[in-house]
């Protein structure tokens, strides 16, 4: 048995404690130990983006972060994107644009797009395509995903203007 580390972190606004082996990935901790299976494993080496989470405001692949690294940090996963019973504008846009087929890559795309648009609310198609190039989708050909993110950006700007 390896000596596990005691980790204290904040996930989706809630304080969370767990034990992590030194070499355990954040993705394994989220999925196997914390029951947060919305972050998906597609490759486990940082190539597909299905496990994208936001760590202290930065977009990361949870498979390439060690679980002990999140000690004392703020983490947002797909489970924390909706505001209670209200879907995030990006989630609503994905639904209305039929931007998912099998849906396995969808959490990663939504988390990645959220990270981009919170930092750059006016990102255009070119910027969105460059940002999302780390997220693989095999079903859609990306057309409807990019349109959903552009529409989601509109909705987010409108919500900001209204508030």
């Amino acid at each position, binding site marked *: 048995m390896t000596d596990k580390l005691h980790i204290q972190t904040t996930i989706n606004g809630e304080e969370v404690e767990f034990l992590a*082996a030194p070499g355990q990935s954040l993705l*394994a901790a989220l*999925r*196997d130990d914390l*029951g*947060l*299976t*919305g*972050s*998906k*494993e*597609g*490759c*486990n*080496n940082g*190539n*597909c983006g*299905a496990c994208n989470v936001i760590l202290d405001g930065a977009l990361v692949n949870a498979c390439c972060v060690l679980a002990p690294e999140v000690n004392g940090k703020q983490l947002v*996963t*797909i*489970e924390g*994107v*909706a505001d209670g019973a209200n*879907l995030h504008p990006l*989630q609503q846009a*994905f*639904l*209305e*644009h*039929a931007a*998912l*087929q*099998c*849906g*396995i*890559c*969808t*959490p990663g795309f*939504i988390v990645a797009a959220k990270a981009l648009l919170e930092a750059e609310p006016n990102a255009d198609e070119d910027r*969105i*395509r*460059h940002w*999302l*190039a*780390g*997220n*693989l*989708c*095999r*079903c*859609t*050909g*990306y*057309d*409807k*995903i*990019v*349109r959903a993110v552009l529409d989601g950006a509109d909705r987010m700007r409108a919500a900001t203007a209204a508030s």
Partner: protein
Amino acid sequence: MTAPEKPAYRVIGTRPVRPDGIDKVTGRAVYGADVRLPGMLRGIVLRSPHAHANIRGIDASRALALPGVKAVITGADLVPPGKTLADVPDLASNLMATTKVYYRGQAVAAVAATSEEIARQAARLIEVDYEVLPAVLDVREAMLPAAPILHAGLRTRGGDPNTQTNIIAHHVMAVGDAEAAMAGADIVTVEGEFKTSMVHQGYIEPHASTATWNPDGQITIWTSTQGSFPARQNTSAVLGHPISKIKVIPTEIGGGFGGKIAIYLEPVAALLARKSGKPVKVQMDRADVFEATGPTPGTSIRAKLGATKDGRIVAAIADMAYETGGYPIATPANYATMVAFSCYDIENLKMDGWDVVVNKPRTQDYRAPSSPAAAFAIEQLVDELSEKLGIDPLALRLKNSAREGTRGPMGMPYRRIGHEECVQAALDSDHYRSPLEGANKGRGVASGFWFNVGLRSSVSVTVQPDGTVSLIEGSTDIGGTRASLAMQLAETIGVAYEDVKPTVVDTDSVGYNDVTAGSRVTFGTGMAVVEAGKNLIKEMSGRLAGAWSVPPEEITFNAGTFSAGDKSMTFKQAAEATVGRGPGLTVSGSVNAGFLQGGGFAHHIVDVEVDPETGKVQVLRYTTVQDAGTAVHPAYVEGQMQGGAAQGIGWALNEEYYYDDNGRMANSTYLDYRIPTTLDVPMIDTIIVEVPNPLHPYGVRGVGEPGIVPPLAAIANAVYRATGVRQHQLPMSPRRILETTDAMKA
């Protein structure tokens, strides 16, 4: 040639949000690897490092001695008591080898332990004694008499019973006299040899199965599969366990494209569960998915076309060799002989198809199996012909197009099909009418065909007292079919789409359903749904007849309303009146919609720019045209068209299994096996053509597959226009573009 007028539909043709959408955008949907059971162990599969080897022995004693290890299985465990491997030889040994491995990555043993890390550690402690054999990796080389033989007992079907071979079958298809027609005076001919590499479906979700095996023999398997019923059947076969004692619960499925039809982990998880007495989850990593599942064949195709000077194609000849990987199970070349010339009406045909084993993973279907590689050859030759004859490539296709009555791929005449309409829509499109200007740019076009299979489907429908209905189905939903089926039921029984609640259930809870494949769910399961809807109306009419004291035949149902004389009720009112106060009401609909039904056609237009310094091909503009029959949910039809095009773009430009001489795949990661990203594809324009399918009550055609057929050739044709060099081998990677264009310059 104008498409027939479409009836006015109320729900069909709208774009509602899919019923499972919220679960999938919030991370709540449970996919294969998301299953967690109390006390669950984790399983790991040990795989062969060699492409071809005899197994002399396996020693698992050190693994079993490791604390936390609860079970180890090998191929010997897959042979049921009282049976021999001869009963289920290839299916079983592909899941776990016994005496020989035929490809690198083939499973040889599996471990269950209290953690994934311990299981991984234990797998490394299993000692397998291999005798390494020479491997053969190229389909034409494997056909040569001197090639290393994979299966000592394999004989070509119908061939010499005394000659060992790697050729499983030689399919011959001939109509008329192609050689004579080709040799005719004034016949213009084009010919070439084309090669494609093995490629993978590339679904983002790796395979995952979780199983329990109770002391009474009841097995329950949660798995990501395109077909829970075939998974149950195949698991039953390799375990020698009755299907009544196996329940398969399909999880959400993260892509399949044909690659999740076969079983891999289901019996492995079940056997580990039996040996350990605990639930066991087994999942693959990405390298396992590439090396140990079912990619689609590499091919070698030699073809020749002959046409009159005014552009009538009179003869076609093709010799097509397809890999089947390490096992003689699949027959992709047989499909190739059916689909190669399906877009055209050609009087004289001669086709030879060869199915050949090589030391690579056992191949599986991949979206329109066999058709894209054939189209890569044929649609380039059609393009070459158009240039030689000085006829517009689309006009040449229109002139030779298959239509209703043309002899179809199975020898029977086509029913109403829409290839001409697709080509005409391409001719009329803004894309084709817009000039493409600038150096190193080119425009290509190509057509494509795939069947639309029917097969067996069964659903049940329960009326709730509030007038909503539950639709119980067994077709796993990969791309929005809960929506497209609920829409057909809503259309049939006259309720709102939102009042239909579809649920995909396990194998104990609904009648038999074949796989979600062959573009068949919206079509075939849709037929079962419409039948169930009609049965429901009949049952409710019967109940209303009692309540209204009129004969049942006097009750009519129209636009969602039951009526007889001056009495009338909406469906909702009728549900409240009958089920709300009387006994429950459940009906079913079951169909066998046949094997190869109807025809799906597509036509694509693509503009590319080729960088002369790097050889990189960039797709600038892309338009897909496809006959959907009737587009039930147009957004998901477009999604299938766009997704097929993107997969075809990847196949054309980047994707290939890259092997070293020893049969080791050198690129088994997404970094090195590069599927298209947002930067590799533009927005993909769609033009949906609707020529109703006479076989479906609403005219639906399957739309999943034709979209992957044209891109390989369309892009090759575009690259030719941009560079003046024909591309005979995929992928058209920067290296290959530079090699071929430099060779031309030199």
